[in-house]
């Protein structure tokens, strides 16, 4: 029966394509629905038979969020907070991960476990004490407090991922650099960091997305449009009497775009094989 294995191959292939299609639909459909919603008139959104296609379309929701709800102010706040968080996360995280991975630090696994355990605290449990501390220090409604909190939330992840990345770099590279005359700082800046760019881009993106999307702390520690971030801003759209679904969808589309653009822009850095050629594997 020479054709039986061909039939089997065909079935396998069809199953594979079906599974892939399912995953694509599963992940993209909500976003497409949101996109469609953002272009539909309120009248259609509340009709008994909703439409998938935005027809007739409208840009009214986009006008609403930028002109009436000053959404751009939230975006600026989020960009500043998330940008600073990413910057500090990478700077501090790289130094910490480098020291733990490469220098003679006693109990470095104990330190790593401690760092990880910090991120295991239920966040809701630390809101109240942090609130008291922040108001005592006069940091309420500032970028500083948000960046500080996001830094402590993001650092464990950044340190762990970069630590793992640094560990994959062969020791002989360090030793060659040390013999060439490099001190620890030079070794980190000139050798280890350039070799870890993909790890940097990945962890940087994760930190940025975490700070960009965070809601609870932002809600608790900011109180006006001059400091509130996007998730809080979007929550402000809804009032007691009315849920503006179209505006919500439009705002969500607007804030998802920068993330997608960031990932696309850095995609070429998220590549394998940057260390290729350094050593014989």
């Amino acid at each position, binding site marked *: 029966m020479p054709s039986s294995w061909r039939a089997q191959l065909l079935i396998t292939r069809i199953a594979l394509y079906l599974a892939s299609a399912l995953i694509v639909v599963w992940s993209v459909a909500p976003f497409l629905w949101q996109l469609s919603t953002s272009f539909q008139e309120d009248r259609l959104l509340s009709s008994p038979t909703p439409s998938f296609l935005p027809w007739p379309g409208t840009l009214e929701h986009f006008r609403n969020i930028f002109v009436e709800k000053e959404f751009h102010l939230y975006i600026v706040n989020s960009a500043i907070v998330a940008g600073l968080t990413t910057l500090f996360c990478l700077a501090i995280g790289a130094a910490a991960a480098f020291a733990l991975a490469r220098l003679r630090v006693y109990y470095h696994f104990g330190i790593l476990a401690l760092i990880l355990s910090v991120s295991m605290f239920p966040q809701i449990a630390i809101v109240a004490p942090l609130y008291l501390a922040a108001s005592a220090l006069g940091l309420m409604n500032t970028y500083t407090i948000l960046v500080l909190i996001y830094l402590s939330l993001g650092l464990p992840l950044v340190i762990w991922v970069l630590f793992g990345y640094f560990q994959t770099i062969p020791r002989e*590279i360090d*030793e060659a650099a*040390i*013999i060439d*005359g490099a001190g620890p700082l030079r070794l980190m800046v000139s050798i280890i960091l350039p*070799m870890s760019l993909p790890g940097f881009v990945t962890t940087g993106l994760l930190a940025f997305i975490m700070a960009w999307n965070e809601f609870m702390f932002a809600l608790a520690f900011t109180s006006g449009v001059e400091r509130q971030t996007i998730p809080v801003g979007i929550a402000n759209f809804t009032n007691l009497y009315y849920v503006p679904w179209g505006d919500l969808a439009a705002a969500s589309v607007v804030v998802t775009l920068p993330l997608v653009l960031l990932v696309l822009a850095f995609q070429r850095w998220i590549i394998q094989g940057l260390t290729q050629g350094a*050593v014989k594997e």
Partner: protein
Amino acid sequence: MAPVFLKSITKAYGAFEAIHDIDLEIEDGAFVVLVGPSGCGKSTLLRMIAGLETISRGEVLIDGEVMNDVPPKHRDIAMVFQNYALYPHMTVAENMGFALRLAKVPAAEAAEKIRTSAAVLGLTDLLDRYPRQLSGGQRQRVAMGRAIVRNPKVFLFDEPLSNLDAALRMQMRVEIAELHQKLGTTMIYVTHDQVEAMTLATKIAVVNKGRLEQVASPVRLYERPQNLFVARFIGSPQMNILPARAADGGGAARLLDGSRIALPWPLPLGEDGELSVGIRPEALLIADDGALGGRVTLAEHLGGLTLVHIALTDGAPVVLQAVGAPTVAVGDLVRLRVDPAGLHLFDPDGRRIAKPGES
């Protein structure tokens, strides 16, 4: 260029000693090979000279200066690693110039040094390439270029050829030997390959379990192994080692199968004293009047040479190396004569029993 002295070097990890009390004198311009089985401590020894490992006891002197507490960059050494350890994000020229950049050598001078070093190693056309664009041999050459561009007092090589295929290894071996002739710099080279050691070294230090077994020139090491370990380790195929007892008032050695090898010099042992007889494969000759007898189990034809594997009458395996292709077939019974020049005797502790005239 500089001599290197190791004085009672010891490396201890807690109670465990990896290196025991090693003394080694490396003359200015020498090519010393540290050779031994894996895990014998030879790499640790090299890394202690480089400053990558701390020294538990003893002293390392380079050019007359104690280096124990001097950081690697101030020891004026360069090292070539087994896996090359090139910087993957830098071009060949940048790899070679990294040390010069750190030492704040003026750019024009550094470029000149890189150019001349590249010319020595045939890397001139590759200066703008990245390591990932190079073949294994080229990468190893860049690693050597990175070392010679600094014109160090001492070169250290840590199994530099182990990752290359056989043909390339031979070629690079020749290149390293030529490099040493050209530069005349002191070189210390670690390998587990005794062929590399024999062909490259002016002096070989055989290391075993953290101790020096013997230090001598390649020829002397081959001709006068001081103990059974060196006898087995140096030479390919291995020396045949057979247990025996003294016989005929010390004038002969009696093997376990009863056959006697007449000795051209008297043994300093009583009748029936135990010893080990070592016979180099090329010192076994097929001859009808031979003292030993056995059956051919395998013949390996290497072209110019043939290795004949023979089981003696008690089953003990020996290897004979003959020039050309002797007419023997598997299963043949042969008689073997022993050439005294390739005959070595060892006492029960494995120490060499000196021939008359040996110091």
